[in-house]
């Protein structure tokens, strides 16, 4: 298995989700991508469900600095302290866990621990996780600032890239959604419209 890419560290955790801060400003994993923590004995899987870049100190808003600069990069170059005063965070929805090398597509017994390292899952692991679509139910039934259909579509798009035949994966996922959302055709249509190739 390839070396896993470490993308951040858990700074807030609950049973259903966790928030991680990125080590580098703007190095946020894409919306919908599958990330994991490696706390033993239980590894948690999460789907990136939102992200934000804010000031380090809550009451202190950034100010516009680019009036005399020609490009955006110039701003950061002339004020290098900015990279330390701002931070990027992302939230991940917990969609499963692994215990004793066995994958479960439901919530873990305990939430993630603070300061757990968060990794981006490599394609092999994404494929392993994508063998079951049970996580779709978790995604659909949570209330998030991000519209559900956006999140579901984004996660499926991300996952499909791990497959040799992304279309087959998306069709199978679509069928699962069609059953889950049998009572909500508009939502189904919205998602299908966002995942078609």
């Amino acid at each position, binding site marked *: 298995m390839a070396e896993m890419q470490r993308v951040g560290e858990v700074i807030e955790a609950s049973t259903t989700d966790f928030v991680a801060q990125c080590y580098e400003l703007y190095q946020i994993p894409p919306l919908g991508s599958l990330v994991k923590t490696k706390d033993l004995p239980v590894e948690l899987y999460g789907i990136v469900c939102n992200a934000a870049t804010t000031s380090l100190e809550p009451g202190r808003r950034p100010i516009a600095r680019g009036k005399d600069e020609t490009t955006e990069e110039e701003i950061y170059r002339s004020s290098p302290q900015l990279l330390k005063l701002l931070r990027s965070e992302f939230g991940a929805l917990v969609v499963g866990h692994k215990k004793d090398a066995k994958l479960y597509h439901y919530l873990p017994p305990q939430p993630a621990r603070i300061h757990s390292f968060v990794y981006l899952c490599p394609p092999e692991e994404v494929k392993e996780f994508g063998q079951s679509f049970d996580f779709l139910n978790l995604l659909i039934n949570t209330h998030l600032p991000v519209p559900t259909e956006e999140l579901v579509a984004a996660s499926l798009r991300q996952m499909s890239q791990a497959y040799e035949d992304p*279309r087959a994966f*998306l*069709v199978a996922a*679509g*069928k699962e*959604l*069609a*059953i889950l959302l*049998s*009572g909500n*055709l508009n939502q*189904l*249509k919205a998602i*299908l419209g966002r995942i*078609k*190739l």
Partner: protein
Amino acid sequence: MSERLGIVVSGSLNKGVEVKLDSSAPIEDMAVGRFVTIEGQKRRFFGMITDVSLGVIDQKLTLTPPDVSDPFIAEVLAGTSTFGTLHVSPSLVIGGDVASLLEGPQPVKTVPSHFSVVNLASQRDVELVFGTEDEKRFFIGTPLDMETKVCLDLEELVKRSNGVFGKSGTGKTFLARLLLIGMLQKGTAVNLVFDMHSEYGWESRDERGRKVKALKQLFPSKVAVFTLDEESSRRRRVSTDFVVRLGYDEIEPEDIALLRQTLNLTEASVQAVYQLAREFGDKRWIEATLGLEEGEETRQLLTKLNIHDSTYHNLRRGLETFRRLPFLVPSAPDNTVKRILEYLDRGTNVILEFGRYTDIAAYILVANLLTRRIHAQYREAMEKAIGEDTIPPRQLVITIEEAHRFLNPEVSSQTIFGTIAREMRKYNVTLLVIDQRPSGIDGEVMSQMGTKITCLLDNERDVDSVLAGVINKSEFKSVLSKLESKQQALIFGHAVPVPVVVRTREYGSAESYRDFIPRDETEAGKDIEELWE
């Protein structure tokens, strides 16, 4: 081959089960009449698709249809939000329980459990149900989209009266010919065919104008052709065995009663016939009546018999028809019935050609007249056989065309055919009825038929009458009305374990003839070989 179609989702024993199609099974490939197997938890069921329908998971979908021009959307929705359903009527248990393992397929008494898997029936399953061709089973055709043979149990078939129905031009004659060939080949019965259009004995042409051989050519040693019209037979170069002549003395008042409609006689005329017969005697009455001349004497006689003048004229006009039939003579030189029975006794099948006399009056008269007496003889022989514990006479199958003329509710109680159809097998005589208007046949007679083979019928009343008494009638209705107009038939009844739609076996090519004739029959070798060329 075990192609999965879907799963059972609901149903009942009476109405059949609903099957939700898998998305991988394209609905457009389904066809009514196809066989499926259902893998229940304990038993395997065998049934037929009787309806195909479309379903949606939410009615809203039908109001705002999704954009299926996008193949992705179409593929996702197929089988999930939109799906096909099949209506299957299970008819047999073909495995799983002890009885079906030991004794073969058993009738169903229950339904498969929820979500049992439904597969297309494999060749083996169909063979298990319909058996393979052997000394009593005759290969009649293949199920739709399959190569397996559907075999009729001819021994069972001939024990009851049977019917071949279908609109004109759907292949009734071909089917009947096949059945006759089957009976000849397997030797399960001797046949007497009243061949109205002279197409069973010697070759005739099919709809494409191709010559097709008939029974006498295929089984020269087992078939005798009798003819009413020597000239026509000679012109068609048929080698006939006997020329039939019937005497007036053989016509009985009952025969006239039967011909009432055909001869356009009034009820009073028919009554007059009985009176005249009493006056002149059963043997002489026609000749005597036709011999009556206008005059005082006749008038006195009519007054004596209390026959009205107009009735007499009406009857007279009807009887004149007989004079125009050359095969009717005042007294016959030979006893036709005796001859026919002699042939039948030897196991030779008799085909009676009508030649030019395709007039329905002639047909009814001759068929009824001969059959009544043959039946009487058979009855006698049978009773004797029972009394003396000897071998009963051979099973006899009498083939009649235009059967609704003999078996309509009005006359079926009077004709011998009605009696035969009802009495069934008791006297070893049964009927093979060929008709295009089954609704014209008496319901009681229809219900006594063992096996019905029907080609396409589209008249509602005909369909109803053929299917009268069938369980799940409405389902078979849809199957029957969707038959192709050529070479397809629905068979149901005594000789097949389940109703089946078949593509009829090929008939008319040299190869097909070769298959009909058992090996040891080809002793005439070369001659027949040449015939095929």
